[in-house]
C-alpha cells in the first residue's frame, strides 16, 4: 500500500492525470487501517476508565461489590451518592472543592500571570543574562515537581509556612513550562514592528503591553492557563506533604483520605462516595476544556505555519 502512495507524486506530475482515488490533501487525510486500529485502542484505553467512573458512581457500596465493573447494578443511586458526597462529615467535600478552587485561582492564575509577564519580557526585551535565564528555565522544565516537593517542604517548614494554604499556592506559582511556552509564543505572535510603532506613537511600555501585546497573546494565555489549572487541580503530592489540617485539603487529598478509610479498623467504607466524588472532581476540568478548546487549539498551533 505504501509503495503506491509514495509513487503517486512522481507519476502524477502533470495535474489532471492524477486519479481522484489517490488524491489526498490535508483536508481529506488518507486512511490507514493500522493507524485507525491503534487510535481506536487508544480511545478505548482513555475512555473506558471514564465510562467505568460514570457507571460506578450510580452504585451503592453493596452494588459496587456484587456487580460487574462495566455495567449498572440493580439500584440507581447516583443522586443519593451526590447528595451523600456533599453531606458526609458535615459537608467537608464542599470545603475541599472551595479549597481546590482557591488553589487553582491563586496558584494557576498567578502562575499564568507570571508566565505572561516573564515570557513577554524575555521575548521582546534585550537585557544581559537572558541566556542564563533560558538555561535555568529549560533546566527547570526537566525537573519533575515531585522531586522538589521534599526540599520545598523542609524549606517551608523552616519558614513556618507548612500546614497553611500558602504552602500549596506559592510553589504552584512557578511554572517553568508555562514561562517557556509564553516566551516562545510571544516571540512569534507579537511582531516587534508593532511594538516599535506603538512606542513611536508615544505609548508607555505599560500601555503597549496591555493594549497591543496582551490581545495578541490571548490564545497563548489560555493555553498556559489550562496547563497550570490542570496541574494545580490534580496536584496530589505537594499538598500531601505540606498540609496536615484536613480543612485545607484539596479534592485530590480529601478523596484519598476517604479512600483510605476502607483500610482502617472501624473506618467507614465509602468507595461509592470516593467514586462519585472523583466524578464530581473531574467535571469542572472537562467543562474548562470544552469551553476553552478553540483557544487551546489555536494556541498549540501558533507559530507552526509561516504566514
Amino acid at each position, binding site marked *: 500500500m505504501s509503495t503506491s502512495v509514495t509513487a503517486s507524486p512522481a507519476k502524477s506530475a502533470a495535474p489532471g492525470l492524477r486519479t481522484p482515488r489517490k488524491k489526498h490533501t490535508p483536508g481529506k487525510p488518507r486512511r490507514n487501517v493500522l493507524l485507525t486500529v491503534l487510535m481506536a485502542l487508544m480511545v478505548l484505553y482513555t475512555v473506558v476508565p471514564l465510562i467505568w467512573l460514570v457507571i460506578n458512581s450510580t452504585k451503592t457500596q453493596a452494588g459496587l461489590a456484587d456487580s460487574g465493573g462495566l455495567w449498572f447494578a440493580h439500584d440507581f443511586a447516583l443522586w443519593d451518592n451526590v447528595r451523600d458526597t456533599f453531606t458526609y*462529615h458535615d459537608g467537608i467535600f464542599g470545603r475541599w472543592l472551595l479549597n481546590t478552587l482557591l488553589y487553582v485561582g491563586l496558584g494557576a492564575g498567578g502562575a499564568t500571570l507570571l508566565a505572561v509577564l516573564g515570557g513577554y519580557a524575555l521575548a521582546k526585551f534585550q537585557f544581559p543574562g537572558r541566556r542564563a535565564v533560558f538555561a535555568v528555565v529549560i533546566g527547570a522544565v526537566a525537573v519533575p515537581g515531585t522531586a522538589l516537593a521534599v526540599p520545598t517542604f523542609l524549606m517551608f517548614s523552616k519558614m513556618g509556612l507548612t500546614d497553611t494554604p500558602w504552602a500549596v499556592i506559592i510553589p504552584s506559582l512557578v511554572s517553568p513550562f508555562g514561562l517557556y511556552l509564553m516566551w516562545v509564543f510571544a516571540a512569534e505572535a507579537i511582531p516587534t514592528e508593532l511594538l516599535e510603532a506603538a512606542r513611536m506613537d508615544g505609548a508607555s511600555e505599560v500601555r503597549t503591553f496591555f493594549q497591543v501585546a496582551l490581545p495578541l497573546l490571548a490564545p497563548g494565555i489560555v493555553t498556559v492557563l489550562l496547563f497550570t489549572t490542570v496541574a494545580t487541580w490534580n496536584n496530589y503530592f505537594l499538598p500531601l506533604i505540606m498540609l*496536615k489540617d484536613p480543612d485545607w485539603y484539596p479534592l485530590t487529598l480529601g478523596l484519598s*483520605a476517604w479512600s483510605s478509610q476502607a483500610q482502617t479498623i*472501624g*473506618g*467507614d467504607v465509602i468507595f461509592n462516595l470516593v467514586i462519585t466524588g472523583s466524578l464530581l472532581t473531574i467535571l469542572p476540568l472537562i467543562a474548562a476544556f470544552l469551553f476553552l478548546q478553540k483557544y487551546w487549539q489555536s494556541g498549540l498551533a501558533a507559530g507552526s505555519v509561516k504566514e
Partner: protein
Amino acid sequence: MRRTTSRILRGIALVSTLALGVTACGGSDDDSDTKAVSAGDLQAALDKGGDITVWAWEPTLKTVAADFQKKYPKVKVNLVSERSGDKHYTALSNAISAGKGVPDVAQVEYFALGQYSLTKGLTDLAPYGADKLASKYTPGPWNAVSDGDKVYGLPMDSGPMALFYNKTVFDKYKIAVPTTWDEYLDAARKLHKADPKAYITSDLGDAGLTTSLLWQAGSRPYKVDGTKLGVNFDDAGAKKFETVWQQLISEKLLAPVNGWTDDWYKGLGDGTIATLATGAWMPANFSTGVPNAKGQWRAAPMPAWTKGDKASAENGGSSLAVPSLAKNKELAYAFTEYANSGAGVATRVSEGAFPATKAELESPAFQSKKFDYFDGQEANKIFADSAANVASDWSYLPFQPYANSIFNDTVGKAYVSSTKLADGLKAWQNASVKYGEEQGFTIEK
C-alpha cells in the same frame, strides 16, 4: 506511584523520629509532669473551658465529642478525623519533631505506642489518675498502654481475635468450622479443591496478622526492657505458625489479595475469601464494607494451635494518648478519660465499637447483643471469651511501625517467591536487630 509516595513519606517520618530521639535526650523537662493532678484540678480546668484538638479517625468519637461539649459547654473539641494509618503517624511525628501543631489528644494504635512513649513524645497519664484505672480494662490492652507505673494512653478499643467464616460457603461444600489450625489447613485444601476460585483466606504477607498469630501460638519474639531488646523468631510457637502457614503458602491455598483493598472487600462479599482471622472490631467493617454478604458470615472462636488450648491474641486496637507537647493537658486528659473510661464508652459501644473495658465486656446486655449482620448470632460472647483468654505478656518493639514497614521486604518474599517462611522471619529478625542497634538499643542475643 502509591509505593513511591509511601516510601518518601516513610523517609520523612523516620527523619522526624530520629530528630525526636535527639531532642528527647537533651531535655529532662518531663519531671514537671510528675506532680499529681487532682480531680479538683481537672474539674476546674473543665469549668474554665478552652479548645482541644483531637486527631482520631475512630468514627464513634464524633458523638462522644458532641456529648462531651454538651456536658462541658465551655470546652470546644476540634475533632480531626480525615487521616488514618501511615498518614496519621507521619503527621503526628512531623508535628512533634517540629514542636508545632501538635494535637492535644491523638489516637495511637497499640503497636505504635512504644515508638512515641520511648522518645518521650507522650505524657505519662499516671499523675492525672490514669494509674487507678488499671482494673477497669482487660489485661491485653492495659499491658499495651502501660509500662511499669507509667501510663501512656487509655485503651479505646481492643481486638481480641476470632475466626470469621462465610457459613454459606462452608455449608455449600460441607466443610466443618475448624477448631484447630490443622483442621483449618484441611478445610483450606477441601475448599480450594471444591472450588478453585475460592480460598480459605487471603494473605500476601501482613505484619499485623503474623504477629497476632505468633502471639496466639505462644511465641514471644520481642523482649523489651527499657533500652534492652531481644528479637528472636526461633521458639516453639513460631515453629507451629511456620509449619501451618508454610503449607498454606506452598500449596497455594491463600488468595493472592492484599487486605483492605477493594478486591479484598469484593472477595469477602462474593465467597471467594471464606474466612478471616482478625480482631473483634471486624463486624463494623463487615457491615459498612461488605453490605451485600449480610447474613452469610458468622463468628467462631479462633482455631487452636494445640487441640483444647484456649489461648487467644489481640489484633489491632488503639488508645487515646496525650502528646508531651499538648497545650491543654488537663482538658486533654479529661476528654480521654470521658471517652475511654467514662460515659463515652457506652456511647461508643452502642455505635459498634468493641470495648476494652471489663464492665462492658461482661455486661449481659453486651453479651446478648444480636448481630443482624451475622443473622442474629450473639457474637459478643465469643469475642468476650477471646478477650479473657488473651495472654498479657506480649510486647511489640518500640519501633514496631518501622519493623512492620519492612515486613514485606523480608517475610513477604515467602508469599511471592520460593523463599521459605522461616528464612523470611530470620531476615526480618536480622533487619529489626540492625535497625535497633542503629537506634542505640542494646540487643540481647
